[in-house]
Each structure stands twice: as C-alpha cells, then as structure tokens.
C-alpha cells in the first residue's frame, strides 16, 4: 500500500470530550453560584459561556493536532502543540487492533481503537475515536500489510469457542452478589446527606426511638432481606454491564473477545502470547459446577486480576474447549500428587496462630471476647484440608498445580512459558524439611501465582531441576 494522507479522528470526539469533562465542571458550580450573587446573573452567564468556549477550544485543538496515517511499513501518530511527538509503530510489530465502544461513542457509531504491539502496556497506540467503518478499515489494512500470506479471509469470520446467553449472564450475576456495592451505596448516601445538610442528629434521635419501639425479629429480617436483595441486584447489574453478550471467537492464531452492555469492548488475544491458563472455582458456584477461565498473556491485561477473562462463567467442558483451542494441554486432576504432610502443620500455624493471637489480645483488653477462641478451629479445620486440595504434577508439556479448599484454582503452565524456577525455604520450612517451588512466568500480575508450596526438600530439588531442564 502506498503512503496515505494524514487523517484525524472523528470530529464528534470533540463533543464527547466536552461531555466527558462535564462531571468535573459541576464542581465549579458552587464557585459560579457565589460569583452569580456578587456579579449579577448576566456576568456569571457570560463567564459560564466563556468557560465552555475555552473547553471546546482546547478539545478542538486536541482534535486538530492529532493526526495518524499509514505509511508503507509503519503506522504513524503525531500530536502535541509545543512538544511535538511522533510515534511510529513498525507494522511487523502490530499484533492486532482492539476496539472499545463507550455508551456515547456507541450512539454516534464511533469506536476507540487500540493498536496492540508486542510490548504490551505503554507503547500501544490509541485512537479516540474513529467511525466503526474506519476502525475496520484500519484493522484490515494493518493486518494485510503485516501478513500477506496467511490470513486473507474476512476479519469477522471465526469459530465461536465460548459464548454466554443473557440467561447465563443473569445466573452469573446472581452468584456475583456483592455487599461491597451496598457499602458504596451507603457511602454515597452519606456524602449526599452532607451536601444537602440534613440534620442527622435529630434524625438519629427520631430513628432510635422508632427503632426501639418497632424492634422486632420481623423488622430485623426485613432489613437483612433488603440488604441481600440489594446485593443481588448490584451483582447482577455489574455482571450485565461487564459480560453481557460475551463471545469468544477463534480464528487462526488468535482469539477475539467481545463483551459489555453499555461499553462494548473487542479484545484480541494472540495464542502465541498466552503464558498459562488459570481455572477458578469460587466457593458456592464452584460446588455447583461453574468455573471461570483466565489466561495470562505476555504484556499482561487490563482485566481485573491482570489476566484475560476467557470464560467468566462456564462448565468444565466449555472451559476445556477454550483451553484446547488455545493449544494448551487439558488439566489432569487425577494424575497429580499431593504435597508433603508438613503442609498441614504449616497451614495450621500460619492460619491458626494469627487468629489465636488476635483473639488473645482482644480477650485481654475486653474479657468477653475470649469467646472468640471458638473461631480458632475454623482456620485450623480449613488448614487440615489444605493438603488434600494442593496437588501438582509435571505432565507431558506442562506443569499443573491445583490449590485451595473453598476457593479452588487450577494452573496449567506450559514448560515453554517457564522463565525461571526458584526453591524457597523459610526457617520453619527448613525445620520441617520442606521447600516451596516457584515458577516465574512472563506477564504475571495481581495475585495467585502457580506455587508448589511445601514439598519435601529433596523432591523440591528434583522438581526444580526437571522444570529448569524442560524450560
């Protein structure tokens, strides 16, 4: 393709930009109100208009100075007024093009385009926003320039490996019920109250006498029921916003994931960049046969937890199909070995002692809290089960680890993604003759690493050597 003329993003982005800074402009209202009383209505109206005009002007300048174009072998973005910057992305480094459509952009038929490069994170290029047609044109053009030989078929055609119906999303939302949102809701109420200066003390006085006179079990249950209902609604809403219309397509060497109710996002996951698969069975839904599948990719992910959500709410067979499509081996739960017995003791000490200490301190300060000692058997009981659920194995092409009693996780780490192997021994582990084997992979973020905790030291040495030699 020959050189093309520089283009700009869609003019409507100026409007979106002004609307987006709306909320922060609201903060200026008290100041304006004060000004209005002092300066008179006309002057303050003029001030508001001038402010809006200035805002619109900056957005217009932003829009005008950012240009992009495709040259023979690179994608070039230029921006900046005083400090001109020019970013040139060699086309062979373009991995793929992802779209995201926020609500307003969707109404206007626009999409934010992310040009993903091998480096992940910082050196991506973002176009905010162009028409959907232009987005597709760019994607097609970038891909055609990059790989002439292999992929000539339609960009949207692909095999769907996993999709969720609205019913499935609803079910997922019911399990994803969250009290955090309720807390947020009450916090918001509190701030609002302060803003409209309600006299809380009076209200509390009234409320207390009301509550005392009506305090019945039924009332208590009603409040509890309401809280739970709110939690369920919050969970369902959040899940619908995020995962509505979830679809994972596969074509050639990449997955394409589409999801979102108001904000539609389209993300590309290149199979070669997948480092490991992590299956999670949460306490309740896991017992009912539902699990979530995430994959860690080179360069990380913007998703919560730092891994790409591949199947947020799936049956084991469905998750298995996605794992298979990614070219990873299946999880062989039956072929794995349990860690050493000492793991139980270490878990009891690690989970039981802090609870015991906490209760003891509380009990010394407030004697009735000694009853809290009744809580100590809970972490100890969970610790006793830890070993049964912590298993590992070096399988054909991957190291596999499972861990967790209530919240269970399975890792599939292909040997090719093992970067370094470490054996770690704390003082306690040395006394018990144990060691932890740690596998470091690329693009890991957040919590939950595939550690093999507490195997007998000689076995740990063997495991580490075997892992390092296969890496």
């Amino acid at each position, binding site marked *: 393709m020959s050189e093309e003329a520089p283009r700009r993003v869609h003019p409507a982005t100026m409007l979106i930009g002004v609307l987006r800074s709306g909320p922060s402009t609201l903060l200026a209202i008290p100041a304006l109100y004060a000004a209005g009383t002092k300066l008179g209505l006309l002057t303050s109206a003029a001030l508001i208009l001038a402010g809006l005009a200035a805002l619109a002007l900056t957005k217009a300048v932003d829009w005008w100075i950012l240009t992009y174009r495709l040259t023979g072998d690179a994608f070039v973005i230029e921006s900046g007024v005083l400090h001109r910057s020019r970013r040139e992305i060699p086309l062979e480094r373009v991995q793929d093009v992802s779209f995201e459509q926020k609500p307003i952009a969707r109404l206007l038929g626009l999409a934010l385009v992310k040009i993903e490069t091998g480096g992940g994170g910082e050196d991506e290029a973002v176009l905010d926003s162009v028409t959907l047609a232009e987005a597709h044109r760019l994607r097609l053009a970038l891909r055609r320039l990059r790989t002439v030989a292999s992929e000539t078929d339609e960009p949207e055609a692909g095999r769907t490996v996993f999709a969720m119906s609205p019913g499935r999303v609803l079910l997922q939302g019911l399990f994803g019920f969250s009290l955090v949102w309720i807390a947020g809701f009450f916090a918001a109420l509190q701030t609002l109250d302060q803003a409209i200066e309600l006299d809380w003390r009076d209200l509390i006085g009234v409320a207390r006498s009301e509550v005392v006179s009506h305090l019945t079990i039924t009332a208590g249950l009603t409040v509890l029921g309401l809280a739970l209902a709110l939690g369920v609604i919050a969970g369902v809403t959040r899940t619908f916003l995020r995962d509505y219309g979830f679809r994972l397509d596969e074509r050639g060497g990449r997955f394409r994931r589409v999801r979102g109710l108001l904000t539609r996002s389209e993300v590309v996951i290149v199979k070669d960049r997948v480092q490991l698969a992590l299956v999670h069975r949460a306490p309740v839904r896991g017992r009912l046969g539902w699990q979530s599948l995430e994959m860690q990719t080179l360069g990380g992910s913007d998703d919560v937890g730092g891994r790409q959500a591949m199947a947020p709410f799936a049956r084991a067979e469905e998750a298995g199909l996605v794992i298979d499509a990614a070219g990873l081996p299946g999880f062989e739960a039956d072929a794995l070995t349990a860690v050493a017995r000492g793991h139980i003791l270490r878990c009891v000490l690690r989970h039981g002692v802090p609870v015991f200490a906490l209760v003891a301190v509380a009990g010394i300060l407030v004697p009735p809290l000694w009853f809290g000692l009744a809580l100590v058997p809970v972490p100890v009981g969970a610790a006793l089960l830890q070993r049964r659920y912590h298993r590992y194995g070096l399988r054909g092409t991957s190291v596999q680890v499972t861990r967790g009693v209530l919240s269970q996780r399975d890792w599939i780490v292909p040997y090719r993604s*093992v*970067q370094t192997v470490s054996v770690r021994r704390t003082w306690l582990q040395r006394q018990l003759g144990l*060691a932890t084997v740690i596998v470091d*992979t690329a693009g890991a*973020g957040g919590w939950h690493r595939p550690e093999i905790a507490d195997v007998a030291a000689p076995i740990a040495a063997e495991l*580490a050597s075997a892992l*390092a*030699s296969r890496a």
Partner: protein
Amino acid sequence: MDLTIVPLQPLERAQINVLRVRGGLTAALVLAAAITAEIVAAEHLPVHGAIAALTLLAGIWLAWVSPPRRWRHWGYAFTGSELHVAHGWWTQVHTIVPVLRVQHIDVSQGPLERSFGVARLVLHTAGSDDTIVTLPGISRATAEEIRDTIRVRIGSAA
C-alpha cells in the same frame, strides 16, 4: 537439612570486603546522625551516649560481623545450560535461570567492586517477579566467561 540441587561455589572472598565497606558507610552515616541527635538534644536525654552507643554496636554488627555471614549464604553454579544463584539467611532462595530464557546479560562493576576486583552478573529474563537475577561478587573473568557462554547459547537458539 541442606538442599542440594547442584554443588554450589562460594563467591569471591573479596566480596566480604565489599559488603564490609558498604556496611561501614551505612553505619558511619547512621552513627553521624545519632551523634548529632545526642549533641542537639543533650539536655532532654536521661542517659548521655545511650543512643550513640547502641548505634555503634549496630554499626559494628553491620560493618564487621554480618558481612562474612551474609557472604556465606551466597552460592552459585553455572552448568552450561543453567545458572544457579542461591542466597538468603532466614528465607533461603535458590533460583535457576535456564540459559535459553535469558533476554540479555550485563556485567557491571561499581567503583567499590572494581577496587576489590569483583564484578556482578545481571541476567534479564521475560519473567515477572524474578525478571532480574543478580549474581554479585564473582571475578570479572568468571563473569565475562559466563556471559560469553550464555551469549553464544542464545545466539545459536535464535
């Protein structure tokens, strides 16, 4: 019980001196601060010289007693296909870097290390938590030898 994955070699003895000088500098700084505090707040202190004395003890530990102990917990081995680095006193860590996973290698020598004739080998991998594995306190010749061997290995794999 000791963990042996491969037999490990100790670091150069000169590294003890590097650790000592480093510890000594830290100790001198902290001691200076303590003495200043003693002089400035002289009339508010119940016992004169207590802070400085404690700091001096800590300084002696840092500069003289602990360096050989820390040195002893380091060990390394280069097998041709893997680099092993072990260190740590309370929590002991033995890290294995497969040569084929090395992205790039640095041999570096600070002024202090140069004057005691030791160098550090720094391996960068694509990993996340152990993305940089450092082996300090080996002779420059050893560091360069390992670096060159690894470079040839990476070159042949690519």
